[in-house]
């Protein structure tokens, strides 16, 4: 093996095709898009050089600040929700349901494979308030509360998005972390039990430290996924009401394709890129210390 990886030709053959595809479909568009940040216009009307105008606009655009805030708020809440609930599920599978967890795992995982748009429509109906109440409002009214126009105001719409997306994705994180928990050697747990560790102390001193690596991976997955949220918001609220639930991705898309401003859209894309980069670097830096020690 060592001799194969020491051979430059072998490395070139192994890496070459992937690198070529990566360059063509990732790096070239990235650079291309960066080039757009210095122009105004669109494919239909043509482009004209704009200097740094897109960047100055980016820093003074209240919509960007609002979308940036929404994206961060969403990413943090979602990551906490996904990972905590996913971890809870994984613990349930491993320590409570054990071998009979297959059916529950499948059921909880099911929303992951359902198309986002279908789930969004389902949630629109669940949280509907006009022309007639959906299931949630019906329940509220039946217990003596008044119905809420869930998707009609920013705060409640945000809540619905988070509930929907956590519901949709916790099964995935459950399975991901479950796989990590399975890796904890049974004999360590056994010996801890013999030493007198019970539920909480077993979890606190054995399970949690040994599952930290997979938790870190989950957090990275989650943050990188949620910071790029687009489809679920687009399908559920379309960014509304107003721009209250518009993440940067949606604002970028609208700016480029609905407002025909490719240059400014690309500038917003650059901001997203930097955001992703910062978050990833931060997480990897903090994970470099050996968490299992």
């Amino acid at each position, binding site marked *: 093996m060592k001799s194969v990886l020491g051979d430059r030709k072998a490395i070139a053959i192994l890496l070459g095709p992937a690198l070529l595809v990566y360059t063509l479909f990732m790096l070239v568009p990235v650079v291309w898009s960066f080039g757009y940040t210095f122009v105004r216009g669109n494919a239909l009307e043509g482009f004209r050089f704009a200097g740094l105008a897109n960047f100055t606009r980016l820093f003074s655009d209240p919509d960007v600040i609002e979308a940036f805030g929404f994206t961060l708020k969403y990413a943090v809440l979602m990551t906490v929700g996904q990972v905590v609930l996913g971890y809870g599920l994984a613990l349930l599978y491993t320590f409570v349901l054990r071998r009979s967890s297959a059916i529950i795992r499948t059921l909880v995982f099911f929303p992951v494979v359902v198309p986002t748009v279908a789930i969004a429509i389902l949630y629109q109906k669940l949280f509907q308030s006009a022309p007639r109440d959906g299931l949630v409002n019906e329940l509220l009214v039946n217990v003596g509360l008044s119905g809420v126009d869930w998707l009609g105001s920013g705060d409640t719409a945000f809540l619905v998005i988070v509930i929907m997306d956590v519901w949709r994705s916790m099964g995935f994180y459950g399975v991901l972390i479950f796989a990590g928990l399975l890796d904890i050697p049974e004999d360590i747990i056994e010996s801890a039990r013999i030493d007198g560790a019970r539920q909480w102390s077993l979890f606190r001193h054995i399970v949690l430290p040994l599952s930290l690596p997979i938790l870190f991976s989950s957090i990275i997955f989650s943050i990188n996924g949620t910071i790029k949220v687009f489809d679920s918001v687009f399908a559920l609220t379309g960014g509304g009401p107003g*721009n209250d639930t518009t993440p940067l991705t949606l604002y970028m898309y609208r700016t480029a394709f609905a407002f025909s401003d490719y240059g400014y859209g690309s500038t917003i894309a650059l901001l997203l890129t930097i955001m992703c980069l910062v978050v990833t670097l931060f997480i990897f830096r903090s994970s470099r210390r050996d968490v299992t020690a």
Partner: protein
Amino acid sequence: MTTAFMRGRTRPIAGAIALLGASALLLTGCGGGGGAAETGTTEPDKLTYLKNAENTNIEPVLDELAGDQCADANEALPLEVSSIPQADLDGQIQLLASQDALPVMFAAAGTPAEGAKLWKAGKLVDFEKELEELGVLDMIEPAAISTIENLYGGAFDFLPFQFNIEGIFYNKAMFAEQGIEEPQTWDELVAAAEKFKAAGVTPFTASGEQGWPITRLISSYLFRSLGPDALQKVADGEAKLTDPEYVEAAQAVADLGEKGYFGENIASLDIDSSYNEMLTGNAAMMYMGTWFLQNANDPEKNKVGVENIGFMPFPAVEGGEGSIDQYPANVGLPQTFGAATYTPKVGDWLKCITENYGQVALEQSGSISGFKAKEPVEGLPTLTQDVQERIAGSETSVLWFEALFNAKAGQDSSKNAALLVTGQITPEDFMSLLQTDLDQG
């Protein structure tokens, strides 16, 4: 287990993952890039037609034409209809245009400025020339042509599948029950609304989900208070939406919401549901364009009876410069043909549509288009006749709120309208948001 990647090989992997995530985003930002040059015409094998999903008027008429008057054209070039939500239409059309992949026939220009761009880029058929050649130019109402020329880049580049005026549809029975006459002034309108509300009737219905049925009230108020050129002045930079007399209009409409005249949960009400509120007798009034006639004339949908639906102009604002007989006029969200796929076979379809659409649309659903009917249609509902007379008698027309806005201002206007009437944004902030969009150009 997974600790391996957390030690020595962290940096390259971190970089790779970051780049992967980032470039996936950036990819979305760099589609297109082609020029606007036309590369001759290509012969389509179908009459592909992309419409805005909200438009339900045109397809049934085209279907009837395809099976009857235009059967020959349809045999040569079968009609194939697909639709997308109106909010995504402009973006989709622009993408298709930049890839030279426009359908043969399509809806476009949710924002008129976008329609003008398509025309300037040479993507649209010049109907003045083509219809003249086909010998059917005289089948189009001249008023409709001039409306199109005013809005979409100075040319006859869209077809008037609708020719609408706008105003307030109201439930005659409810008005009679409460002893209310057609309001002539804004104050009378508000007083009527108050009376309805006191009697437990929802005074107005409007789709907050769409937003524009609410912003239309603002523009109508402006046209009455400041005159028909109120929004042209904003477009020309002579006035700003943040000027007090403009904010007053937004305030007047916000007040309607604050007093609860729109009923509950207006923010989530979609357009069909708002029609339904009107046609099932749940609301007394609805501002709408006369494309609504198709629904009002349909006994399946109209449960209160077509004789019980009346149409009145938006009332005057006391001391205002505008007049009550200046109706907003438009051709709906217009449809057109792509220049790159305009061949003689498509021309056959175009000719057939131009000759027959007006007649069939009137006969089928009593809806009025900019295509002339070949012969008078007997037995039209009184509501349709009334609207026809108003169109004929109207000398000055006005536009709608977003007509002269750029795409971003247009979208922000529609998306924030529901917030305005539910008190989640102040009239000052609403107008200032739009003015900022306009200033960005």
